[in-house]
């Protein structure tokens, strides 16, 4: 089963299974990754599933939408060049092993 690696702010790594078509946010909440709040449930409306994407994977992700871009400006933790909303990262073939770091806060 393909998987995603979440890295917590303390460096702890958590490997979770992700299904085809599932978003990284959905995989995270299904596995109780505490650093992902996902208040709006994946509707790109709250910026509480913010992640930093490992540089090696950034170019392989789907392009960022305008909503996501605007929401990231208001995210609680600092926005960086590799910031994304995990609800907008649909898991697909070729993303097995995707590495996402969690910010220190979502609110």
């Amino acid at each position, binding site marked *: 089963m393909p998987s995603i690696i979440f890295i917590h702010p303390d460096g702890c790594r958590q490997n979770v299974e992700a299904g085809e078509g599932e978003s990284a946010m959905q995989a995270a909440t299904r596995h109780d990754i505490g650093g992902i709040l996902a208040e709006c449930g*994946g*509707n790109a409306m*709250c910026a509480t599933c913010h992640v930093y994407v490992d540089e090696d994977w950034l170019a392989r992700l789907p392009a960022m939408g305008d909503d996501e871009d605007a929401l990231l*400006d*208001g995210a609680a933790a600092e926005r960086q060049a590799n910031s994304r909303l995990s609800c907008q990262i649909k898991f697909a073939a070729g993303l097995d092993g995707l590495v996402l770091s969690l910010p220190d806060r979502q609110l």
Partner: protein
Amino acid sequence: MSATSRTDSVTPERGAPAGVPSLDVDPFSTEFFEDPHAIHDILREAGPLVWLDKWNVYGVARYAEVHAVLNDPLTFCSSRGVGLSDFAKEKPWRPQSIILEADPPAHTRTRAVLSQVLSPTAMKGVREHFTAMAAAKVDELLARGSFDAVADLAEAYPLSVFPDAMGLKQEGRENLLPYASLVFNSFGPPNQLRQEAIERSAPHQAYVAAQCQRENLAPGGFGACVHARADAGDITPEEAPLLVRSLLSAGLDTTVNGIGAAVYCLARFPDQLARLRSDPTLARNAFEEAIRYESPVQTFFRTTTREVELAGHRIAEGEKVLMFLGAANRDPRRWDNPDHYDVTRRTSGHVGFGSGIHMCVGQLLARVEGEVMLAAIARKVASIEITGPVKRRYNNTLRGLESLPITISPA
């Protein structure tokens, strides 16, 4: 109320479509408002799609189908009204909302404007003030000890922050709650609640229409921010007042009922108040869980734009489908132990704010208000005791209380 399944019966006007369980419950009745949960259970267990005899509409009460309908806005549209009235057949009682009662692509543009006015960045701007006001309100209530948690807390707190944040004048604010009550009653069927609300609405409508105009909105408030988007060319000057109206319609009464629901939950579940007190950072989740548990917005309709199959049944074009948000939020197919209020529950995915493109645009504002109030309670209040009769307020869409007498003690 008899809530029996009558699959084979024939109703005078239309009757249930073949194979769809028909129920004679009325989700807009006093009995339902008093206690919807037993009827929600009947609706969910009757099938994934039901027919409501009383109003000749389809209903969905399970999480999966409610979520599916909310997330297919082109098939289940909002532009024909999100109440029982079908705007293709009846004239709306007020000019149609250009966001709530609109479909893509028209909806996309107006939605983007309100999303930006109420963005996470905008919330950072109001958060500190809202927090201070919540702390002051709880201090004031602790000094009183006993009070009505509806009027003195659930209504008083949002009224102390929201109208100012909008940029409203001081005069006439007493029209805000009656106006919101009218709007949410109007989504129901032509019952007494709806008729009376509309008959008495002229002064409230006149007040709100005036407050939506640019010259009546203080600089820096959310209302002025909407008008500024007209200057930027994102909306027309004629559209701006209608979008301000949406904020005034949906921004106050909903939060009142959300905060009221949370206080009512904490009063009934002392173990959960204790849990919250032991970790005030749970305040945000405790509010969210109250929204799931009580679902202050109970129902919305959609209208089919084409023939569609849902849960194995064919629905024709032009049919109203009633979504039971409150029932979905307690569907045991989706939630473990759904009838328990649990401040540590993972609430992501509840439909108390809706889901999909019409999901509550003011959700971040509601969450800030709810969170800072519950955080103040968590830090300052040791116990909440219900001290008198709890009275329900009846509204065709909103679930909340008329009165909740409580006594609180300081931590």
